[in-house]
Every structure is written in C-alpha cells, then in structure tokens.
C-alpha cells in the first residue's frame, strides 16, 4: 500500500549524492580524501568494541566501575575513547530491579565514540516513537523478556549528553578475563535493547 518505488529512488540517491560530492569537491568545500578517511574511521576504528572494552573493564575492576559511574567521560577517555558524539558521557547501570534503555526521540543522538554509528532501527520512527512509552513491548521485539518486577528507565538523549548502558555481568563469567568478557558484550546490551551473551548459549 506504500506506493514506494524504493529501488529506483535509491538509484536516484546514488546519482544525487555523487553530484553533491562532485560539486563540493569542485568548489573546494570538502577534501575528497577527508571523506574517505571519515568513512574508514567508522568502518574500521570506532565501533561497539570500544564500549565493550569499557563494560568489561567495569565488570573486572571495581575502582574503574566506580569512576565510570561517577565521571564516565573521564573514565572512558582514559581507555582512549572520546571525541565526536562522546564528548559528555553518562553511564547507567542495570541491576536485577532496574533495566535502562537509551533513545533519541528527536533525532539520532548516539554515543559514536563508544558504539560507532547507530543501527537503522535506532534512528527509525518505530523505535523512537515507542520506547519512551512501551519499553517492554519494544524489548519483546528484540526477543528480550525481563522479569515481571524489573522496572525500566528510559533515557531520551535530548542534549549533548550520551548515555552508555552498563549491562549486568552474566552468571558463569567469574573465570573470564577482561578480553573474554568484552566478547560477550553486545552493542544492543549497551543501548538497552539486548543483554550480554550468556556463556554457553552463543
């Protein structure tokens, strides 16, 4: 019923975007090599492994966890992560009683510096419209069911503060070192739409 001709539109988009790039380069407003570098940075260097490192360290090191909860910007910067869309960080910690979820209802604010670029669904109308009212309904679409009694706090990123969810460390991970722990921390678990991988189920 949508009457979209999305494929032809997407072909149009390739042509239109190429035209703009050609123009901006010709006019000297952008350096084409800089465009390549920007894309490479988010393809290769900045992604959710950054955040997973932060979470794994918080799980492994109580002092680091305390610092993170008190001054996330500094604690995260100490691991070498910062910059664009991670200038001002706040960490929010899940507990058995409380689950945190992050959204930007007004646009697509997301902690690039620790999670990379957001997935499409994070920027889309369905997620942005629903999670502030019905987070448990949203979780069920991600296959996540919380205990009935667990409360959900939603964080709507309306300013330049970026929120990182610190998920609960799963049972059965007592023997894992920081590197192994980082491997079970999923991107979605740091947004609040998922949980870490439970050892033995992945």
């Amino acid at each position, binding site marked *: 019923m949508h009457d979209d001709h999305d494929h032809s539109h997407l072909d149009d988009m390739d042509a239109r975007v190429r035209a703009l790039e050609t123009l901006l380069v010709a006019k000297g407003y952008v350096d084409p090599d*800089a465009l390549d570098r920007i894309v490479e940075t988010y393809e290769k260097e900045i992604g959710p492994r950054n955040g997973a490192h932060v979470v794994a360290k918080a799980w492994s090191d109580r002092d680091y966890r305390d610092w993170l909860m008190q001054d996330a910007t500094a604690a995260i910067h100490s691991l070498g992560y910062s910059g664009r869309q991670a200038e001002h960080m706040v960490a929010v910690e899940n507990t058995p009683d409380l689950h945190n979820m992050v959204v930007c209802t007004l646009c697509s604010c997301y902690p690039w510096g620790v999670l990379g670029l957001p997935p499409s669904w994070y920027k*889309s*109308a369905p997620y942005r419209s629903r999670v502030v009212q019905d987070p448990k309904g949203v979780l069920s*679409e991600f296959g996540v069911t919380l205990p009935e009694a667990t409360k959900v*706090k939603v964080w709507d990123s309306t300013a330049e503060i970026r929120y990182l969810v610190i998920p609960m460390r799963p049972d059965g991970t007592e023997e894992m070192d920081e590197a192994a722990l980082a491997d079970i921390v999923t991107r979605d678990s740091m947004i609040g739409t998922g949980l870490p991988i439970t050892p033995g189920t992945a």
Partner: protein
Amino acid sequence: MNGPQDLGGRHGHGPISPDPNEPLFHAPWESRSLAMTVAMGATGLWNIDQSRAARESLPARDYIRFPYYRIWFEAVCRMVEEHGLANADEVATGEPQTPSKPIPRLLKADAVKSVLMAGTPADRVTETEPTFKVGDRVLTRVQNPKSHTRLPHYASGRPGTITMVHGHHVYPDVSSTGAKGAEWLYCVEFEASDLWGADTTASSVSLDLWEPYLERG
C-alpha cells in the same frame, strides 16, 4: 518544533524489525552522505543545532518515509543552498556555475582523526549558578514553538525531578538560529505515569533539559 521528528509516544509507525546482520551502510550514498555531513559541519559554516533544525524542517510526509541518511543528505543540500555555497541547479547537476565562497575551515584528510577525536564539547564557561539542584521538583514549560527546540511535546507541561546537573551547555533554541547562547542543563526524571497515565510499561523517562524549559514544580 512539534514536527515529524518529535516522535516520542506517537503511534502508527509499525514494527521495529531490527536486522542483526545489518551492514554499517546499505549503499555507497549512505557513507558519502555521512562523510559530507561531517566534513561540511567541520567547515564552521553551521553548527549541529542548525543541522538538526534543517533535518526536522523537511516536509513531514518526507521525513517519516526517508531512510535516515537521506534526511541528512537533504539537509546538507538545503544548508549548502541557504548559505549561498551553491544554487539548487548546481546541487542537482554537480556542475559549478558560480564562484566558490570562502569558508572558515577546510577539513583536510590528515586532520580527520584529530577533529573526530576532539569532538565538539557543548559545555560553556559561566559565572552564573544553576537555579535547580538534584532532588528539586520542576514543571516543564507549556510551549509549542514552530522553531527548533529540544523539549519534546510529550514532556511539555509535565512534572519531574532534577537528577543531575550536567553543566552550562549550548542552548539549542538559540544556537539553531546561528547565534550563541548557553544555559544550565539538567537531567530531569519523569514518572512514566505523569507522561502516559496508565498506558505505559516504563517506570520513568529521563530527559536532558535546559533551564528555560523549567519552572519550579
């Protein structure tokens, strides 16, 4: 602006359908649109609030159908034209017809890493003190401006509690016009029932709100 971007609590937008194997970009035009948005932002010709204002000013019927990177692309086109960097015909064809305008800064490839790592902190020095402290009850302003604001309509005219004092930050309602302005920024927690009545599965919703949005509750 109570525009198409103000989505919190709206219905009718369908399922979320997350794709666990989604690529970072779905097509080359997406990555190039991202890169041009970042690079043009780095020129210093406009700030992030002006970019957001341009994106949400797309016609509502377009905004809610477009892939997000297309929203960004359309906004860059609009800002390039509005700032007199090129005309619509040049943007459509890619062929320059008019002389270039001087720009404050050109982002060169070898500066990308340092620029991205530096980011653009939004906190500003002030001699003022914040009016509210953690634990204070506040009431958000009743408003519905056609201009850019970051108080979503669903949280307008509602009672909440200050849970953090973030600092003195760039104020988007002013910054989006190209002017300079900063205000104290707070995290305000709302009981979900104060936003949605019984129609919610949330316990609370927290928003970062600037002092002009708030009065003592």
